[in-house]
C-alpha cells in the first residue's frame, strides 16, 4: 500500500471537515449569523488538503478570498475560524479580520486575501525569508483562474524565477473567475502553457483526484525545498457554490451544479478509490463523518455563544506595535 | 510703594448664614481679575451664589480651597497687583487668619475693607510662595532630561530645573503644561500666554468645561447625565438644576420635580400634539399681536332700519336669505370705498391699497377658523353677497376652499353676535391693516332727544394697525360705517 492508513484517514478527515465547515457556513450565513461577504470552497477540498498535508507550521501558505479550506488544511483551529467568521472577539483574528482576512501566523497561514492577486507577492516574501535565513522552509500560494491574470501575480512569478525562490504556485482552476469563464479570461489557450512561459516547471492535473494532486505537489515541494526554485501547478476542479454565498449563479449551465455534486465530488471519488483499492474500509470513513459533524456543530454552537468585540477596547487596538 | 491688598472673604447672605462651602473658583492664582467678575461659587444650606470681585487685580492667593467649608467672614483669597511682593501677600494672609472674632461682628457681604475677620477653623492649604519657586530651581544638570523644546526654553526663563518636574508629555517628556502646572503649584506666576485649554487633551464629550451651577453639576454626576446634552436656562448662561432634571425626566431616570411637594390630584391630562392648522393660527396671530400696534375704535349702531330692509328683501325674494352679516359686509365694502385708507395691506415694508373691497369673513370650523373672501364686495348686491358667503362658509366647513378663496383679502369681519356676545376686540389678520369685530344686535336703552327709548343696537369695534392707520382715519371709517348701517338705503347710491 503506497499510503499509510494514518495518512489516508487524516486526508479524508481534513477534506470532510472542510466540506462540512463550508456547507455549514452557507446555512449560518443564510440564517443571518455571518456578517459581510463569505466565499466557500466546497468542491475544492482535495487540492487544499493535497497541498498542505505534508507542510509543517513553518512552511507558509498564502490564500485567496476563498480561503476557509486552505486554513483548515493548514491546521488552523476550526472553532477559532467559525468565531472569526461570525465576528467574535475570541475568533482567530479577534473579530477584526472576518472571512476574507482569516489568518493564523502561528500555523504558517499568511491570511486569506480579499485583494485578487494580493497573495503571491507576499508569499514570495515568505519564500525570500526562508531562502535568506536558510531554513529550508517552503512557501505556497493558492491562486484562482481569475487571479492568474492579475499583474501582481505575473510579477511574483517572474521574481520567483529570477531570485529562485522556494515558492509553489497552485492554481485552483474551477472554471469561473467570479461570473466569467476561465477560458474567456485567460488569453492563452492553456494556463499551464502560460505559466511555463515564465520559466518555471508547470503542470496541469485533475484537482478532483486527491492522489494525482498530492503526487504533483509532492514533487514541486521537494524541488522548492532543495533550492530548485518555483513550480506552477494548475489543478482543475469545481466549486459547488457561487462566487459568494447568495450568488444566484445565473452564469452556470442548467443542472450544472446538480451534476457537479453528483459526478464531480472529490470526496466521493476519494472514497471510491480507497475502498476499491482496499486501502480503507467504509466504516472507518463513516465514523469520521460522524465525528466531523459533531466537531462542526460544536464549533457553531460555541461561536454563537462567543463574546462580541468591545468597541471601547478593540476598535483602536493593534494598529501599530507602538506609536 | 504700597499696593493695596484686597481680601476675598466668606460673605454673609442672610441673617442665618454662618458658614459656606466653597464649590468652585473661576480663576487660578496668577490670573487677572476685573471688578464684577465671578470669583467663587459658595453654597449654603439655603442657596448657591457667587462672590463677585469688587476690584481689579491679580488673584495672588487662594486660601479657601474648593470643597472646604469656612465661616462667614473667613479669608478665602487675596487680590493684589502683580507687583506686590510675595512676602507682603504672605504677611497679609498671616495677619488676617490669626485673629478670632464673633460671628456677628463680621462685615457685610463682599466688603472690600475687612474688619474683624473670623478664624478659619481648619488648617488651610497656603500655597508655596517664594520658597516654592526657589525649590524648583535646585537640582543637577538637567540638559539630558526629556523635555519639549518650548518647555526647555521656558524653564530657563522661569529659572526652573527640569529635574524637578514630572513629565507627562509625549514619551514622558516635560511639556509646557507640566512646567506651568509646577510653577503655579509652587506659587509662581506664568509668563505670557498660557491658555491650557488648548492642549488638546479634552476628550470628546467631556462636559467639565460646560458652565453649570455646582448643584446642577452634582446632580448631573449622580444621574450620569452629560451636561453637554442639557438645555441652558440658568443665570449667566449656566446649566441649572431644572435643566438637568428636565433632561433626566426625558430619559426616565426620575420624574421631573416642580417646586413644592408632589401634588396629588384626581385631574387627568390628555396630551395631544398641536395640529398644523392650530400651529399656523398660533404663529400668525402671535406675530400679528406682537408686530402690529393694535388700537381699537368702538361704535354702536342702531339697526332697526336695517332689520326692516332685510325683512322686505327676504319676503319679496323667495331665493333670498340675507342675513344681518351680509348687510355688514356690504356696509363695510361701501365704507372702504369711502375711506380707502382702511382698505390696505402692509407687509412691514410696503403698503398695498386696493381698488376693490375683498372682504374676509371669519368662519368657525373644527379646531380653528378660516377666513373665506367675498371678492369685490363693493360691486356685489346683498343677495349676491349672501349667496357667496353661504357658499364659501359651507365649503369652508367641508374643507373644500381653493387657496385663492381664503388667501388674501383687504379687510376682515369677525362676527360673534350669534353667541350673544355684546362686544369684543379682534386681532388683525396680517398683512391686512384692520379687522371689524361685530357683536349681537340686542334691544338696549337709548336716548333720543333727551328721552329714553329702546332700539336694536349693535356694537362694532375696529382694531387697526397704528403703523399705517391713524386714529382719525379709523374713526372716520366707523362713522361712515355707522351711517350706512343705520341708513341702509344710502348703500344703494
Amino acid at each position: 500500500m503506497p499510503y499509510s492508513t494514518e495518512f489516508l484517514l487524516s486526508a479524508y478527515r481534513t477534506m470532510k471537515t472542510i466540506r462540512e465547515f463550508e456547507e455549514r457556513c452557507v446555512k449560518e450565513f443564510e440564517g443571518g449569523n455571518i456578517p459581510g461577504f463569505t466565499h466557500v470552497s466546497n468542491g475544492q477540498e482535495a487540492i487544499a488538503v493535497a497541498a498542505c498535508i505534508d507542510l509543517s507550521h513553518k512552511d507558509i501558505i498564502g490564500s485567496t478570498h476563498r480561503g476557509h479550506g486552505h486554513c483548515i488544511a493548514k491546521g488552523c483551529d476550526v472553532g477559532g475560524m467559525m468565531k472569526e467568521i461570525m465576528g467574535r472577539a475570541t475568533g482567530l483574528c479577534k473579530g477584526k479580520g472576518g472571512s476574507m482576512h482569516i489568518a493564523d501566523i502561528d500555523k504558517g497561514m499568511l491570511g486569506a486575501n480579499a485583494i485578487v492577486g494580493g497573495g503571491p507577492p507576499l508569499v514570495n516574501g515568505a519564500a525570500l525569508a526562508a531562502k535568506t535565513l536558510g531554513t529550508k522552509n517552503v512557501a505556497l500560494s493558492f491562486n484562482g483562474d481569475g487571479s492568474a491574470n492579475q499583474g501582481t501575480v505575473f510579477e511574483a512569478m517572474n521574481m520567483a524565477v529570477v531570485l529562485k525562490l522556494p515558492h509553489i504556485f497552485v492554481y485552483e482552476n474551477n472554471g469561473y473567475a467570479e461570473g466569467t469563464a476561465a477560458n474567456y479570461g485567460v488569453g492563452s489557450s492553456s494556463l499551464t502553457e502560460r505559466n511555463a512561459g515564465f520559466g518555471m516547471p508547470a503542470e496541469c492535473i485533475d484537482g478532483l483526484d486527491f492522489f494525482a494532486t498530492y503526487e504533483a505537489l509532492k514533487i514541486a515541494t521537494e524541488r522548492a525545498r532543495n533550492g530548485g526554485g518555483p513550480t506552477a501547478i494548475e489543478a482543475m476542479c469545481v466549486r459547488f457554490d457561487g462566487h459568494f454565498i447568495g450568488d444566484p449563479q445565473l452564469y452556470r449551465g442548467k443542472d450544472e451544479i446538480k451534476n457537479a455534486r453528483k459526478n464531480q465530488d472529490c470526496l466521493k471519488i476519494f472514497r471510491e478509490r480507497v475502498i476499491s483499492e482496499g486501502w480503507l474500509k467504509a466504516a472507518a470513513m463513516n465514523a469520521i463523518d460522524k465525528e466531523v459533524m459533531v466537531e462542526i456543530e460544536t464549533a457553531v454552537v460555541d461561536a454563537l455563544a462567543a463574546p462580541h468585540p468591545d468597541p471601547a477596547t478593540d476598535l483602536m487596538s493593534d494598529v501599530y506595535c507602538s506609536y | 510703594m504700597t499696593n493695596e491688598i484686597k481680601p476675598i472673604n466668606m460673605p454673609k447672605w442672610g441673617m442665618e448664614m454662618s458658614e459656606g462651602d466653597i464649590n468652585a473658583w473661576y480663576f487660578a492664582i496668577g490670573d487677572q481679575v476685573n471688578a464684577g467678575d465671578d470669583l467663587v461659587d459658595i453654597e449654603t444650606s439655603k442657596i448657591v451664589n457667587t462672590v463677585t470681585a469688587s476690584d481689579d487685580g491679580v488673584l495672588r492667593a487662594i486660601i479657601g480651597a474648593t470643597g472646604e467649608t469656612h465661616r462667614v467672614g473667613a479669608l478665602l483669597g487675596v487680590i493684589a497687583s502683580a507687583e506686590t511682593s510675595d512676602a507682603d501677600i504672605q504677611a497679609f494672609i498671616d495677619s488676617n487668619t490669626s485673629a478670632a472674632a464673633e460671628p456677628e461682628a463680621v462685615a457685610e457681604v463682599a466688603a472690600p475693607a475687612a474688619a474683624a475677620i473670623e478664624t478659619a477653623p481648619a488648617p488651610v492649604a497656603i500655597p508655596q510662595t517664594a520658597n516654592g519657586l526657589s525649590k524648583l530651581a535646585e537640582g543637577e544638570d538637567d540638559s539630558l532630561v526629556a523635555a519639549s523644546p518650548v518647555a526647555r526654553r521656558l524653564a530657563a526663563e522661569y529659572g526652573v530645573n527640569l529635574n524637578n518636574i514630572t513629565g507627562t508629555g509625549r514619551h514622558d517628556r516635560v511639556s509646557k503644561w507640566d512646567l506651568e502646572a509646577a510653577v503655579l503649584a509652587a506659587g509662581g506666576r506664568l509668563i505670557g500666554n498660557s491658555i491650557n485649554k488648548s492642549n488638546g487633551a479634552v476628550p470628546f464629550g467631556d462636559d467639565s468645561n460646560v458652565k453649570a451651577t455646582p448643584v446642577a453639576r452634582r446632580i448631573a454626576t449622580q444621574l450620569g447625565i452629560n451636561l453637554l446634552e442639557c438645555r441652558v436656562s440658568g443665570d449667566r448662561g449656566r446649566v441649572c438644576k431644572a435643566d438637568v432634571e428636565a433632561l433626566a425626566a426625558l430619559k426616565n431616570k426620575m420624574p421631573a420635580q416642580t417646586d413644592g411637594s408632589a401634588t396629588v390630584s384626581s385631574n387627568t391630562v390628555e396630551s395631544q400634539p398641536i395640529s398644523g392648522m392650530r400651529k399656523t393660527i398660533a404663529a400668525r396671530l402671535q406675530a400679528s399681536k406682537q408686530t402690529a400696534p393694535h388700537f381699537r375704535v368702538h361704535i354702536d349702531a342702531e339697526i332697526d332700519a336695517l332689520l326692516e330692509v332685510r325683512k322686505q328683501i327676504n319676503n319679496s325674494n323667495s331665493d333670498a336669505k340675507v342675513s344681518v352679516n351680509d348687510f355688514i359686509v356690504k356696509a363695510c365694502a361701501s365704507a372702504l370705498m369711502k375711506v380707502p385708507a382702511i382698505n390696505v395691506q402692509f407687509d412691514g415694508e410696503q403698503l398695498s391699497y386696493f381698488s376693490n373691497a375683498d372682504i374676509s369673513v371669519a368662519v368657525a370650523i373644527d379646531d380653528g377658523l378660516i377666513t373665506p373672501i367675498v371678492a369685490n364686495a363693493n360691486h356685489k348686491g346683498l343677495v349676491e353677497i349672501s349667496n357667496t358667503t353661504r357658499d364659501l362658509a359651507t365649503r369652508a366647513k367641508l374643507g373644500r376652499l381653493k387657496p385663492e378663496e381664503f388667501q388674501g383679502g383687504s379687510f376682515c369681519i369677525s362676527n360673534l353676535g350669534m353667541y350673544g356676545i355684546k362686544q369684543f376686540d379682534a386681532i388683525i389678520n396680517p398683512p391686512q391693516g384692520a379687522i371689524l369685530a361685530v357683536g349681537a344686535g340686542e334691544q338696549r336703552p337709548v336716548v333720543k332727544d333727551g328721552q329714553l327709548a329702546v332700539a336694536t343696537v349693535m356694537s362694532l369695534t375696529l382694531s387697526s394697525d397704528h403703523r399705517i392707520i391713524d386714529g382719525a382715519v379709523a374713526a372716520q371709517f366707523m362713522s361712515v360705517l355707522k351711517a350706512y348701517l343705520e341708513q341702509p338705503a344710502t348703500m344703494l347710491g
Partner: protein
Amino acid sequence: MSTAHTKGTEMTNHSNNPTVGGKTSMKTIREAINDALREEMRRDPTVIILGEEVSGGAGCDGQDDAYGGVFGVTKGLMPEFGRERVIDTPISEAAIIGAAAGAANNGLRPVAELMFFDFIGVSFDQIFNQAAKFRYMFGGKSKTPMVIRGTVGGGWRAGAQHSSMLHSIVTHVAGLKVVMPANAYDAKGLMVQAIRDDDPVIFLEHKVMYDIACEVPDEQYCIPFGEASFPRQGSDVTIVAISNMVTHALTVADILAKEGISCDVIDPRTVSPLDHEAILESVEVTGRLVIIDEGNPRCGLASDIAGIVAEHGFYSLKAPIRTVTAPHTPVPFAPELEDAYLPNAEKLMVAVREVLAAGPSGA
C-alpha cells in the same frame, strides 16, 4: 544640528536635548543614510535591502555595484554583504513591496526601495491593503517590520511622474509610519529607528537634498518618531516646515531675526506619528502659525496641521493660520513653471508678514 540621542542597540525613548555626544564628522544625507544601513546590516543579519538598481549591474558584463542606488545611497553595500542581502530586483514594484511585506512577517527586516516614490501607484495595494493592515486585520498577531525608502520632491525638472510629494497619502493610511528627514543628523538617526521599528515605515528622502551636509556622529544612534526638532526658537511666530521646506523656513527666520522678530521653526521630522503637542505649545506662546509644505493643498499635511491647531489651539491664535503649499496641479516640467510651482522663501516671507500684521499686536 545639535540634538542628543541614545547609542547602542536600545531604542531611544526621550525627547530633544541640546547636547551632542561622541565623535562626529561632516556627512551628507546620502552618506548618513548609507552609514545607518551599513551599521544596521552589520549588527542584524535579518536586515536586507531590495529594489531596482540598489546595487546595479546584475547579470551584466560591466561593473558590479554599477549604481549602488540611482542616487548612490546604497553604494558599497552589495560588495560587503553580497547579493543575498542586497538584492537587485526586476522592475516589479508590487512584487518588491509584497516580497518585503511577506518577508517582514517571516523573520526578516527588509528595507525595500521605490526608486521614485511616484511608483507607489503600481505597488499601492501591497502598501495600503496588505502591509498597513496586517496587524489590525489579524488581531495583533502579525508584525511587519519593514522600511520602504522612496525619493520625493521637485526642483530637478524631472516632470510630473518623478517629482511628487506623496507623504499626505501614506500619512492618511492607518498602520503606516511616515518619516521625512531634512538633514543628515536626522536622516541617520531616523533610519536606524525605522529599521528597528516593528511597524511598516515609509522613509521619504528628498531627491535634491542628498548633498546637504552637517556634523553627524560616527556611532549608531536612534531618533524617536513623533518628536519635532526646533532648529530656531522664538516667540513671535511659529513656522512649521518639513523636508526641503525647512531651508526656506530658516532663511525667513534669520532675516526676521535681524528685524528683531523671533520665530519658532518646527521641523516635525516624522509626519506619522506627528508631534502635534510641540506645535500646540509653540502656538500658545506665539499665537501665530504658518505652515509650509511642498505637497499639494487638498487634504495635505499643511491643512492637517492647520486643522489640529484650529481645533485644539483656537484660543491661542491671534491671527488666522496661513499655509504655503504647491498649487493643485501636477508638477510641471518647464523650469519657470516648476519654480512657480514650488514653495520658496519669498512666498513664505509674504505669508509670515501677513500673519504678523494681522490680529492684535503685542502679547
